[in-house]
């Protein structure tokens, strides 16, 4: 089961991805190694901020900025920092990027800033960022690391907006503030409350596991058929 092999703890030793070219570094995070659905990292903002699509997108973009800038900085200093103090250095770099984002969000939209509240400082403790610094940016050149950060961040934004869509449509009957159903719709308030976050994430994870499992089974079937044909071939040759 692919789901069981994925380490749930944020600090699980995930294999460092070694994509052959720079473009793969970018697309990897979007789908194949999606931080939420595949690696199951960064659960706190995923669950806490997704009760509306707007907040989910704002949080995703803030995290994207932090990921890209901290990945770039880490990759620039990767040859100067001694191995023993690298984690402390990474955390300081991340905290600096988060402070910048904190002021940026406050300057752009005070409403969004109030909605995200204490979760902006908490981006520091988001495991995705430290994991990418450790597994990717510490070993790869500057451009590649920035692209990897952007890809991972956009994959994170995508996952957050998936979750936010389900919760906002079911919980409030709106999408980005626009009413989707008629006035007869009774909002399913549970989905805006904490349990709804857990349930909708569980359903999304199940859907993705089902999807990937089906894909894997199809591939396995093709391989098995291929082997069966190959086993039949020599017999046919002998027969002819």
């Amino acid at each position, binding site marked *: *089961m692919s*789901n*069981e092999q*994925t*380490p*749930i*703890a*944020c*600090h*699980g030793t995930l294999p460092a991805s070694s994509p052959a070219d720079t473009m793969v570094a970018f697309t990897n995070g979007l789908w194949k190694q999606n931080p939420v659905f595949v690696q*199951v*990292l*960064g*659960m*706190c903002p*995923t*669950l*806490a901020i997704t009760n509306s699509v707007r907040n989910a997108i704002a949080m995703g973009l803030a995290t994207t900025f932090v990921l890209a800038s901290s990945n770039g900085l880490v990759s620039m200093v990767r040859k100067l920092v001694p191995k023993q103090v690298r*984690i*402390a250095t990474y*955390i*300081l770099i991340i*905290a*600096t990027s*988060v*402070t910048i984002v*904190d*002021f940026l969000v406050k300057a752009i939209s005070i409403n969004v800033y109030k909605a995200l*509240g*204490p979760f902006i*400082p*908490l981006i*520091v*403790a*988001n*495991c995705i960022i*430290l994991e990418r610094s450790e597994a990717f940016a510490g070993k790869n050149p500057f451009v590649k690391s920035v692209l990897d950060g952007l890809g991972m961040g956009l994959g994170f934004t995508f996952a957050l907006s998936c979750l936010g869509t389900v919760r906002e449509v079911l919980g409030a009957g709106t999408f980005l503030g626009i009413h989707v159903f008629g006035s007869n719709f009774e909002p399913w308030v549970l989905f805006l*409350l*904490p*349990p*709804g*976050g*857990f*349930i909708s*994430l*569980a*359903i999304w*994870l*199940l859907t993705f*596991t*089902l999807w990937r*499992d089906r894909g894997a089974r199809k591939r396995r079937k093709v391989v098995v058929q291929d082997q069966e044909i190959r086993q039949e071939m020599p017999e046919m040759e002998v027969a002819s």
Partner: protein
Amino acid sequence: MNDSLGHIFVDALLINNFVLCVFLGMCSFLGLSSKFATAWRMGVSVMFVITVSSILAFGTNLILVRYHAEYLRIITYIVIIAATVQLTEMFIRKTSPALFRAMGIYLPLITTNCAVLAVPVFQTARNYSFVQSVVFAIAASGGYTLAMVILSLVRERVELSDIPDLARGTALTLVLAAILSMAFMGFAGMGNGG
């Protein structure tokens, strides 16, 4: 808003439980709750780190406010937490090597636990006094430990039952957490009376 000590304690422990209602410390909550022994040890070490770092952060915040350097808050808080975790590790290694071997792996993980960073951030945002901060830190970390222990006990039972293969793993844990979270929603009514 009621700022009495008892209210802060019950609020952080049950009504706004850090894990089940505010979604903090989710990674370790999902990842380290499969066994009771692990969950319990993690909970106690987090409690210690949160209380110490909350006290240190309170003092540091006074200095920062005095010199008008509030923009350094996030950076100083994370440095305080990292230092506290390091100190705890050294302290336990010196005093009790057996305990250190038992929980050695989990200690460094506390640095990136968002529940630990959240306590100083919240206490600053809510302008708590020193005593209020300490009570808040103890209650919040107690709530974290409580949720960890309950979930680990439930998961140990669920391990024995027959579950469809697809649902095993994170999805099942999330459904369990959802049910626990619904149970904790029952405490919400206590906030109005207090």
